C-alpha cells in the first residue's frame, strides 16, 4: 500500500528529511515516532501529496505522491492534529459539506456521529465544542469516504482517557476492516498499543524500524523485582530469563514469604532514548 524509497526533502538548503525508506502493507498500522520537529509531519505531508518537491520515490495506493491526481484523495483520509472544521457551522453541516467533495460516500453521517458519541451534539455549532469533541469530529471526518489508507496525526492528543480509549478502539476497528493506517505521534503508549510497526524518526532520519515488541525485546530484557522480610524489608531483582537461577527467590516462593513481586519491561520510550539519546517529548 505504501512504499517509500530514498526520500529526501529540504525546506532550505539544509536537508530536513534524509534518505528515508520503509514500506507498509495493507491492514497494517505504522507509527512515526519522534520528538517535535523531527520530520514526522513533513513526511506525512509528502505522503499525502501536500509536498511534491521531494527526491526519491513515495508510492501511496499505487500512485507516486508527487504525480498524484485528485482521485488519489478518494483513497486516503487525513486527520490533522489540529481542528480543520468550519467553526460557524454545526457538526452535521461540516460533515455534509466535506462528504459532498467525494464521489464515494458510503459512510452514514449519523452512524459516525453516534460512534464517537456526538449524535446528541450534531446540530451544535463547532465553535461551541470542546477540544476533545473537535478531535473526535475531526477523526470521523477522515472516514466519511471510507478511504483505504488513513493518515492520523496525534489522534488521541487532548482526549480524556475514556475518549482516548474510544478513539483507539475505532482505529483498531478500521484496521480490522483491512485499512492501512499511518499514525504520527510522540505518545509511546499509543504506539505500543496500536502499531504493528514503528519507525523512530530523529533529525529527519529513521533510526530504527520494527514492531514495538521486537524493538523492546531486542534492546532490553524484562526484570523481576521482589521484596521480603529479613532484618527489615529487603528488595532484590533478577532478569526474567534467569529466574530459575535465583535460589533466593525460589526459597522465598517455597516458604510463601514474599512480600511483593512484580515484573517490568522496558518501554518504547526507553528504547527510543537508548537508540537516539533523546526523549520523545
Amino acid at each position, binding site marked *: 500500500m505504501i512504499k517509500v524509497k530514498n526520500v529526501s526533502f529540504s525546506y532550505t538548503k539544509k536537508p530536513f528529511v534524509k534518505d528515508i525508506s520503509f514500506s507498509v502493507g495493507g491492514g497494517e498500522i505504522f507509527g512515526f515516532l519522534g520528538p517535535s520537529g523531527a520530520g514526522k509531519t513533513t513526511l506525512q*505531508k509528502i505522503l*499525502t*501529496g501536500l509536498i511534491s518537491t521531494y527526491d526519491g520515490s513515495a508510492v501511496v495506493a499505487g500512485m507516486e505522491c508527487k504525480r498524484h491526481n*485528485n482521485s488519489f*484523495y478518494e483513497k486516503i483520509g487525513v486527520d490533522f492534529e489540529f*481542528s*480543520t*472544521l468550519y467553526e460557524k457551522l454545526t457538526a452535521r453541516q461540516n460533515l455534509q459539506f466535506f462528504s459532498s467533495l*467525494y*464521489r464515494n460516500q458510503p459512510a452514514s453521517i449519523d452512524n459516525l456521529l453516534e460512534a464517537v458519541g456526538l449524535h446528541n451534539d450534531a446540530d451544535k455549532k463547532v465553535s461551541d465544542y470542546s477540544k476533545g469533541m473537535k478531535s473526535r469530529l475531526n477523526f470521523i471526518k477522515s472516514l466519511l469516504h471510507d478511504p483505504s489508507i488513513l493518515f492520523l496525526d496525534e489522534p488521541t492528543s487532548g482526549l480524556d482517557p475514556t475518549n482516548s480509549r474510544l478513539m483507539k478502539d475505532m482505529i483498531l476497528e478500521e484496521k480490522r476492516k483491512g485499512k492501512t493506517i499511518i499514525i504520527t505521534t510522540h505518545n509511546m503508549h499509543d504506539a505500543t498499543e496500536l502499531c504493528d510497526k514503528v519507525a523512530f524518526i530523529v533529525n529527519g532520519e529513521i533510526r530504527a524500524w520494527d514492531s514495538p515488541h521486537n524493538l523492546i525485546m531486542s534492546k532490553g530484557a524484562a526484570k523481576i523485582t521482589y521484596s521480603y522480610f529479613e532484618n527489615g524489608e529487603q528488595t532484590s531483582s533478577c532478569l526474567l530469563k534467569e529466574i530459575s537461577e535465583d535460589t533466593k527467590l525460589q526459597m522465598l516462593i517455597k516458604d510463601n514469604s514474599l512480600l511483593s513481586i512484580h515484573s517490568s519491561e522496558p518501554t518504547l520510550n526507553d528504547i527510543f532514548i537508548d537508540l537516539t539519546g533523546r526523549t520523545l517529548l
Partner: protein
Amino acid sequence: MKAIKSNFRQFLLFLKNDNMMFAACFAPLICALLFRFDVPLLEKLVTSYFNVSEILTPYYALFDLFLSVLSPAMFCYVAAMMILEEKDDHIVEYLFVTPLGKQGYLVSRLGVPEGISIAVTIILLSFFNLSKVPIAANILLSVAGAAQGIITALIIALSSNKLEGMASAKLTSLMSLGIIAPFFIQKGTQYLLSPLPSFWMAKGVYENNYLYMVLSLVLSSIWIVFLIKRFAPKTTG
C-alpha cells in the same frame, strides 16, 4: 467538478451568513447607478455654475474604467476574506487533501467568482457606461478587471490571518492607481506605474488601443503565477 461545485456552494453559504460580505457584492451595482445617473447630472450642474461646456466629460472613460475593476475587486475581496477565514481554521490545508485539491480550491474560490464578475462587468458596462464603450473593449476590460481582481485576492490571501488581511485589503486598492495615470500624469512619468496591469487597461482606453489591454492581461498573468506560487507553500507550510 463535483468538488468544485460543492466548494463554490460553500462560498455562497458563507455569503448568505455574512451580511457585510453580501452587501459588498451589490456595491458595483450601486456605483454603476450613481456613475450613470448622478455623474451626468453633476456635470450639468457644475458646467452651468462655472459656465463652461465640459468639466467631467473628458473623464467619463475613467468612471467606466473604475466600473470595470469594481465588480472583480468586490467579488475577490469577499473570496479573499473567506480564504483567510479558512486559513485561520486550517481548512485550506485540509481541502488540499480532498478531491478538490489545490487547483480546485483556487478555481472554486477565485476562478468561479471572477467568471461571474466578468459577466456582471460586461452587463454593467453595457448598460451603465458613460463613454460609449464598444463591445470588444467592454469584454477586454471585463476580463482584465477580473484578472486584477484575482491579483488583489491573492495578495490579501497571502496575509497570515483575517486581521492582517483587512489591512492588506486597503493596500491592494493601490493596484488600481494605474487607472488614473494616463489621464493625469505626464507621459514619461506615468510609466512608473507600468508594472500595474490597471495602467495598461487605462492606457488602452485612453489611447483607444486594444493592444494595451492585451498587454495588461499578459502582465496580470505574470502577477497571478507569481502570487499562486507563493500562496500554495504558505498554506501547506
